[in-house]
């Protein structure tokens, strides 16, 4: 592995990240968490070489601070939050070899309506850090541009009472291999809302590592995968580290052709985190025999007095509903689209940012024209 990182990172930290990657190599299907997304098979060892992935800020709201991570002498808000220890191989890989990265901050108490629009482009590894300080709020609209292979290591920190809505809409990218890890730390009273709509890639994996660190912290995750062929993997790990924390997850998938939808969601309630409350729903509809869905919700509870509900279901379009609509004159293809749209709607409705929600709806509708 060639580590020619230009990211301003202590030699020591980089060396540890590199060692972890060296030790484990690229994830592959015999590693439980990568069972349905064999990165090694699609990439070979090529994935770990350093090439230039980039970020592009398409809209920078007034009042935000920006710091290019390749500059030396980073300010405290960067060094305090960047490159936290991780056991995640791909996250370590980007730390070890990324040569580009961006840090962004919303200063304490600042409420920003204008969305931050941030795209990741190019092939290779890239790092990003977003800090929303105490009492501040922001909408983040993340864009994804095609690449043979890209690995994004994203860190997000929410201060006390902060709010962030993070929406990522990923178009259908046939040849692309896209991996992203978002590690989100949420302080007391802060709320993170994350929505992930995707149309699949050759391999697409979005990992969310959510830490509810303070009382009253909340995380609400939702997403849709609509796959006409292609692959989409959403892997989440929500940790309720203290009591009185809340999380919800709602993921809906539709797979047609040889589409493969993966959802792996682990919720951990730590010892002593009493009064934690979590819900988790993942559903998939399969259109055709070649489509596949692997839904794996998982609960790990070490506390008492917690409220956890989780469920997963894979099914088919409801024949009775389809008949009802057709018997009232609605042509079959249109009736199928209506039912698919209805199936996805509650997950789309989770998007608070109106412009993004409409964009997701429009793109889903266009994609449904093709599968139904």
């Amino acid at each position: 592995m060639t580590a020619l990182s230009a990211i301003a990172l202590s030699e020591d930290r980089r060396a540890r990240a590199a060692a972890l990657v060296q030790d484990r190599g690229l994830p592959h299907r015999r590693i439980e968490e990568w069972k349905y997304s064999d990165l090694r098979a699609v990439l070979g060892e090529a994935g770990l070489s350093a090439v230039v992935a980039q970020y592009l800020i398409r809209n920078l709201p007034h009042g935000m601070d920006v710091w290019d991570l390749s500059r030396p002498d980073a300010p405290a808000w960067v060094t305090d939050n960047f490159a936290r220890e991780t056991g995640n191989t791909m996250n370590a890989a980007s730390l070890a070899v990324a040569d580009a990265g961006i840090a962004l901050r919303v200063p304490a108490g600042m409420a920003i309506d204008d969305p931050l629009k941030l795209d990741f482009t190019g092939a290779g590894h890239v790092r990003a850090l977003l800090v929303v300080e105490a009492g501040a709020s922001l909408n983040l609209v993340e864009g994804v541009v095609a690449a043979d292979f890209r690995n994004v290591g994203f860190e997000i920190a929410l201060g006390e009472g902060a709010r962030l809505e993070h929406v990522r809409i990923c178009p259908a990218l046939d040849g692309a291999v896209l991996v992203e890890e978002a590690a989100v730390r949420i302080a007391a009273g802060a709320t993170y809302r994350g929505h992930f709509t995707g149309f699949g890639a050759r391999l697409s994996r979005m990992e969310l590592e959510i830490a509810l660190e303070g009382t009253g912290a909340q995380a609400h995750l939702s997403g849709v995968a609509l796959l006409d062929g292609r692959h989409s993997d959403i892997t989440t790990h929500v940790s309720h580290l203290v009591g009185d924390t809340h999380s919800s997850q709602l993921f809906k998938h539709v797979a047609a052709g040889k589409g493969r939808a993966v959802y792996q969601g682990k919720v951990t309630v730590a010892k002593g985190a009493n009064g934690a409350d979590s819900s988790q729903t993942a559903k998939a509809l399969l259109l055709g025999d070649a489509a596949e869905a692997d839904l794996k919700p998982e609960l790990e509870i070490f506390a008492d007095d917690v409220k956890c509900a989780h469920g997963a279901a894979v099914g088919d379009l409801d024949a009775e509903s389809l008949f009802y609509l057709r018997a009232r004159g609605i042509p079959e293809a249109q009736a199928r689209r209506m039912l698919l749209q209805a199936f996805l709607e509650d997950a789309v409705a989770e998007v608070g940012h109106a412009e993004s929600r409409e964009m997701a709806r429009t793109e889903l509708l266009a994609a449904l024209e093709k599968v139904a």
Partner: protein
Amino acid sequence: MLEIKNLHVAVDGKEILKGLTLSIGAGEVHAIMGPNGSGKSTLSYTLAGRAGYDITDGSILYKGEDLAAMPPEERAAKGVFLAMQYPVEIPGVTTMTFLKTALNSQRRARGQSDLDAVGVLKLVRAKAKALNVSEEMLKRALNVGFSGGEKKRLETLQMALFEPSLAILDETDSGLDIDALRLVAEGVNALRDPARAMLVITHYQRLLDYIVPDRIHVLAKGRIVAEGGKELALELEAKGYEHIVGQAA
């Protein structure tokens, strides 16, 4: 209008209708009565074109055309309407959106132009008022959380909206309170027309006091076993099915 001859229908390989013959002329209202499980809903689903209802023998002619050859949406566009015994709940589709989509789909199939949202709303409101269907219901997801009676009133509203040539009502009266029953019956009677035919499936003579049928058929074990005028309903009410079904068997 409708001519069913020697109809045999199997569901999941099991024969349910076993040689049913029935014909309804334009302008007529017929009623079908019969014990639970006799095949009344099977007949109505078969007429509406539900998948899995295999016609193994016999024929269905509607306005001289082979009904069995048409997909359900084509039947609807050509004027066949089935008010279902158990209307389906569809979360995520609002009632109003559904009504608009259905109405315009039928219009399009008949070569008519789409009605805009305002036009549909006007039409729906006028019909809804007569059937006591509230604005609030129209905004909710289709049939989701509707009471039994509300679902039946919405079925009747659709019938009024689509103005079918052949309306089949499968136990639309079941679960209705007395006032709702009258409203639904008025809705049906308002549609009576020399160019329309109706097939009313019911368990209760009470409905037939409001909707007076030209003819009553008794269905048992997949066959018509008795036919008669409106007096037949009274006889059934008094003596039960055992009497007639027993005679036929």
